[in-house]
Structures are given as structure tokens and as C-alpha cells.
């Protein structure tokens, strides 16, 4: 179906904002400022602000049960063993979880869902289009969107109790090294039986899959960089709470950084240096691959654009703040050819707001995914 969205202030993110219209065809953005055509269905945006759908690079929607019993519906952390790369977040997701609706109502149209951070290697994530009109399997954008790893306090506190394999950061590092060494040995072996655990690790070693590492402290960041260098695999830093203390290392190696959740208390020692200035300091140091994450349910997913706002409050440029919740996470997931900006040829995932996205008092008015209206706030109400 073809339709035109007219009279909007378009914020393509990858270019300056302008007043204009869009032609949507077969779920894609087909043309910018198309000529008026008779007979084509038209939606009047009344001069409101149109942004690309927001992309959440790191959350646990669906594996965490929203508003339900945390024992019955805790499917985020398989903490029975420390090394479980064969886990798929996909298998832990509750399809009808309320969190998906919460995300959609607040304009988040793409979700990358990771297993938790309870183990050194917890499993692979999945990237989903948050489009309720699609069957669940059709929503999958990338079935294996990255291998989740974790460093620091979480694997320590979990596995000192559950599997009794970790007491210190040293053991976390040793177990990760051993896992990758096992994978290398496995590859050399002849007449081997298929081992999914090893195959996933091999994909990381061959660069087919990126390791997304939960890490807070500067020393932990350096440890994981050391390990990645030893084995030669690619990493993204998740949380990276103390990244602003060592920006040089990150710039030199051009490691993508996903900062957040920025809105929690300093409830564990390793986040004591959390600062709302981290994104601004990283930008000033030259980091371009910055994205922001909520880690929902750690903070509710509606805070994702507000994290961008507060980063601006503390000095981040508006341009990078917007990119950090749209095109940058899309790029980190390898999806920037489809989502993350308003450009011809991309999926028509769009949100219409009454104020600018970075103004936290904005209201999401409409959400479109793949060109279809999937949330109408006036009819369905705000979810927050």
C-alpha cells in the first residue's frame, strides 16, 4: 500500500531537520517530498515532529517478565553454569509480554534482546522488529545478534553462589580464556561431533558474531580488551560505566560503546563512578560509535530518549544524542541499511511526536512500523 505522510517536521537524524512529506510504499520509505498525487492516501502530521523509530541495543524485554512473578518468569539468566554460549535469548522470550507494548507505545520499534549478565558468557541475543502485526518469527531481524559476555561483580556474585566456579575477577577471565581456547582446539579436531557451544564461540573468533561485553569498571574494560586481543575477536562495550576515565583507549581501538542505564542508584561498588557526563566526555575525546541503552527492566525502556536528553544536558551534542538511540545502535547491530534513520529505501519505522524527541516532556502521538500504524496514543493511551 502506498501512502503519503505530509506536513511534518522531518528529523532524518542523518541529516538536518526540515519540513516536508514522505511517500511510503510496501513498508519502506519510497520518496522524500513526493509530488501530490490524487488517490493516494494521505496522513496529515499537522506540523508535528517525525523521527525514525528508536532502536534499543540492549534490553531484556520478554526474557524478564513485566509486571509478573519474578521467579516464575525469570528467563534472563541461565546461571547454572558459567559458560553457556549456546543459550539463545530468543528461547526465553515471552511473546505476549507487556514490555513489548510498553516499548512500542514509547516509540521503540527495534529491540535487541540479550541474555543477562550473571555469567562470563551468557548466550546470544536476538534483534526484533517490535511490530505487533507480525507473527513472532517474522519479527526476527537477526537471529544471532551478538554473544553476550559479562565481567565484574555480576558473574562473581552469581557464580560464587550457584556453580561455585568463580570467586574473583581472575576466574572470570580464566573461564573466558578457557572457553575460547576450547573452541580453537575443537576446530582443529578431526571426526568431531557437532558442538553448538563451540560453534558459537568459533563464530565469534571468526568475526561472524560480535561479543557484547557487560562491563563497568575501567580495569575490567582493559581486561576484556586484553582477552579480545589475545584471541583476535571483535568486542562492543555494554554499560562501560568508567569508559570516560579511559577514553583514549576506546578511541584508539574504535570500540563501539553502549552507555547506560544512566538512571540507577550507585548500588554496587563498580558503578560508583557512574556519571551523566560520560557520553559528553567520550564525544569530546572523539568517540563516534556511541549508543545509549536502558537495559530494561533495570530502568524502564521509556527512558531511552530521556537518557539522550540528559546526556545533552551534560554536554553531549544533540546530533550524537539522537544518533545514539537510532542509527548508531542500528549500525552496531548491522541493521543500518534497514532502520535507524528516515532515508529512502529504509523500513518505514517512524514516530510522530508533539515536541522534539530530546524534550522529555514530549508525547508520542503515533508509531508506525513497516509503514503500518501500530500505536495510536489517542486511542490506546500512554504507557508509562
Amino acid at each position: 500500500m502506498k501512502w503519503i505522510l505530509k506536513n511534518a517536521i522531518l528529523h532524518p537524524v542523518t541529516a538536518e531537520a526540515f519540513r516536508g512529506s514522505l511517500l511510503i510504499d510496501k513498508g519502506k520509505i519510497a520518496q522524500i517530498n513526493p509530488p501530490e498525487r490524487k488517490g493516494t492516501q494521505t496522513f496529515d502530521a499537522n506540523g508535528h515532529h517525525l523521527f525514525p523509530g528508536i532502536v534499543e541495543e540492549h534490553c531484556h524485554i520478554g526474557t524478564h517478565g513485566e509486571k509478573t512473578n519474578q521467579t516464575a518468569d525469570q528467563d534472563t539468566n541461565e546461571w547454572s553454569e558459567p559458560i553457556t554460549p549456546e543459550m539463545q535469548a530468543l528461547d526465553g522470550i515471552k511473546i505476549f509480554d507487556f514490555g513489548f507494548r510498553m516499548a512500542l507505545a514509547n516509540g521503540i520499534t527495534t529491540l535487541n534482546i540479550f541474555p543477562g549478565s550473571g555469567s562470563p558468557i551468557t548466550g546470544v541475543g536476538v534483534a526484533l522488529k517490535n511490530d505487533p502485526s507480525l507473527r513472532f518469527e517474522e519479527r526476527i531481524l537477526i537471529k544471532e545478534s551478538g554473544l553476550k559476555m559479562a565481567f565484574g561483580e555480576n558473574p562473581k556474585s552469581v557464580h560464587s553462589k550457584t556453580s561455585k566456579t568463580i570467586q574473583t575477577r581472575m576466574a572470570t577471565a580464566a573461564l573466558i580464556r578457557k572457553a575460547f581456547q576450547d573452541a580453537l582446539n575443537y576446530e582443529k579436531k578431526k571426526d568431531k561431533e557437532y558442538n553448538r557451544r563451540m560453534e558459537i564461540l568459533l563464530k565469534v573468533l571468526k568475526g561472524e558474531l560480535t561479543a557484547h561485553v557487560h562491563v563497568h569498571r575501567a580495569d575490567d574494560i582493559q581486561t576484556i580488551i586484553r582477552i579480545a586481543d589475545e584471541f583476535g575477536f571483535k568486542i562492543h562495550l555494554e554499560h562501560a560505566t568508567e569508559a570516560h576515565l579511559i577514553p583514549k583507549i576506546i578511541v584508539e581501538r574504535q570500540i563501539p560503546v553502549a552507555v547506560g542505564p544512566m538512571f540507577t542508584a550507585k548500588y554496587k561498588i563498580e558503578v560508583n563512578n557512574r556519571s551523566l557526563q560520560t557520553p559528553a566526555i567520550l564525544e569530546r575525546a572523539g568517540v563516534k560509535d556511541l549508543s545509549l541503552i536502558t537495559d530494561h527492566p533495570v530502568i524502564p525502556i521509556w527512558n531511552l530518549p530521556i537518557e539522550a536528553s540528559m546526556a545533552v544536558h551534560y554536554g553531549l551534542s544533540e546530533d550524537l544524542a539522537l544518533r545514539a538511540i537510532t542509527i548508531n545502535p542500528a549500525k552496531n547491530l548491522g541493521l543500518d541499511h534497514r532502520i535507524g534513520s528516515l532515508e529512502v529505501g529504509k523500513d518505514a519505522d517512524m514516530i510522530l511526536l508533539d515536541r522534539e524527541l530530546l524534550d522529555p516532556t514530549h508525547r508520542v502521538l503515533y508509531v508506525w512500523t513497516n509503514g503500518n500504524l501500530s500505536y495510536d496514543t489517542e486511542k490506546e493511551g500512554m504507557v508509562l
Partner: protein
Amino acid sequence: MERPRFETTGFFCGGREIIWFFSLSFTGPHDEVLNLSGHYVYPGLIDPHTHVGLLEEETGNFAGDDVNETTSPATPGVRAIDGINPMDAGIRNARNYGVTTVCVMPGSANVIGGEGVVIKTAGKSVDGMVVSSARKIVKMAFGRNITWTWSKKEKYPSTRLAVGAVLREKLNAAKNYMANPERVCTYEMEVLANLLKKEAIARIHVANLEDIETIARIAREFDFDYVLDHATALHTNVEFAKTLKVPVILGPLNVAGKSFQSYDVTFASVKILLEAGLLVSVMSDAPVIPLNLVRLQLFLIDRYRLDRSDILDLFTENPAKTLGIEKQTGSLGIGKDADFIVLDGDIFDYRSRIRSTYINGNAVGGEDYEMDS
């Protein structure tokens, strides 16, 4: 309707009280002029429900945790003031981000948690920070927080059958105590006697509607005053809410639903209960929502497009009234404590910064202070 602000005038601080709002023609004796030209001045924010100083930040999860005395389900004898560390990062956050007064209370693991205290957020000794005009506070809790705590220990009250019974038993003991002419003074009983004499007010942690009903029943049976804290599901029955005629303190609202109990958490509750005519305030429950982020809830409530002066009241005058300190602070007025914040823009503009926070007429913090520390 916008409330008048003191954008270009200044005001005069004499000692700890505001003595005069002056126009440029003010010529009275003064030592110093604070020129706030171009700035926005608001009353210091008040957070009526926090655990700052008791549940400390930046200390891991044991050393600075003094929030729940979970050795008995009723501990009216313990006092928040004895556990508060005025050097806690949470209190520093409060003053640097505009919160000048906080109520600090024990946690929600016990039916009767202990005595809360209202303090200003600057000072090295907690005794000097106490807001003495505040009504005495007895913290209580109802519902599933209690049964989680005590069923794990296999101790009474392990179910909600017995939560109300614990409170009834203690209040009955206090009645016996008051009736006994030969009583021997005990702190526990004195605290509850204060409640029954209405010198103190009960601050009750509660989420579900059925538990709010139980509280209302017991409050009728024993005749005491109370405030509903959190009151997560109260907005689901507005008619019932109106009949209660008690202040409510909603929040923390900027949280994800981590249990069935939080099923009804929504910013919409603020709008619904304000429109029902209740005295509504908003809490951070800090450190659940750390106080450096107190404005986020203000921004998000604004999405419901309420009158902005009503939204400000949720964080200033309304909590002041709830705590009984409205004559001392919570608004800018002659004779009141000079607790105010100076912003370089509108408080609803996310770009505007709190340039300085004044408590009792002294500059004690601001966002730039936080950046330097």
C-alpha cells in the same frame, strides 16, 4: 495559568529566613545583593519519602545498608535519625540537584518500621539538619513486602492474614499501656501512644487496593491519622480514594514492573488522583530513584499535560503540607526558611541547570558542585 516567578527581581535573605521580596526599589539595610537577573528561582524541592543516608550509595550492598531492622516485624522503637549518614552520596545528590528537604524513613520490611525524620539536605551533623516543625512520623508497611521478608524466615507474619493482626496487636498494646496508671515508660509504646494521641502520623507503605482497604479499616478501629505511601493501585477506584480523605504520596513512578504488586504503577495515577481532589505528592523513594534524577519524574508527569504549577506543587507545597512543615518551607514566602533553587532556565526545560541550591539562606550546592566533586 503560569504562577508568577521571580525572574528578574531578587530577594533578601536575613539569616535563615526570607524577610522580604524586593523590587529594585528596595533600599533596606543589607550586607550583600544576590543578583539573580535572568535566572529562575523556585522553592527547594521536598521529597517526602526517601531512604537517603540509611541506604547509602557508593558503599556496595552491606556496609551502608541500615534501612530495615528485620529482627522483628514491629520495631517502633528504632529511629531513622540514628542510622542516617549525612555524608551519604544520596544526600549530596539531593542538595546538588535541588532537593532541600527530605523525609527519611526506615524501609518496608516490617509492619511497624520505626520513626522517620524530616531533614534539610545540608550539614555534617544530622541533629542540626532536622526540621523540627514536622509532625512525628511512624513508618509502617502493608502487603507483600512484609510477607516476602517474614515468610522467608518462616516467621510471623508470613501471610497477609497476619499483617493486619501485627498492627492491631501492637496498637492494642499501646492502648493498654496508655490505660495503665502504673506503666513503666518504654520507647516502643511511647511512639505508638503518640500515634494514638494523633501527635504522630502513620506513613504506610502499601501497593494493592485490598491492602489499602485493610489499612482504612484498622485506622477506623484505632482512630489514627495516616498517609498512604506508594498507593500504587489507589487510582483504580477513584470513588474509594475520595472517601479516604488522606494524603497520598505516589511513586517511585519511573520504574519497570518487577512484580505483580507493581502492576498498576503509572504516571497517570498522579493526574487521576489530583483530579479526584486528593493531596498528592510524588516521591523518589531514593535511592530507588536517585535524587540527582528527581526532575525526570517531573518531566514525565508533564506528558500528561497538567497545569505546570500543579506539577510543581507535587514536589514542593504538597509534600510540605503532608509533612506538616508548610509554614516553614515548601514555598517562597516571608518568614519562611530561605530554601530555594536557582536555575538558568525553566525547571521543565531539560537543558536548564540548577545553578545553586540555597538552604536556610546559604548556598550549599548545585549541579556544578557535583561536577567538581
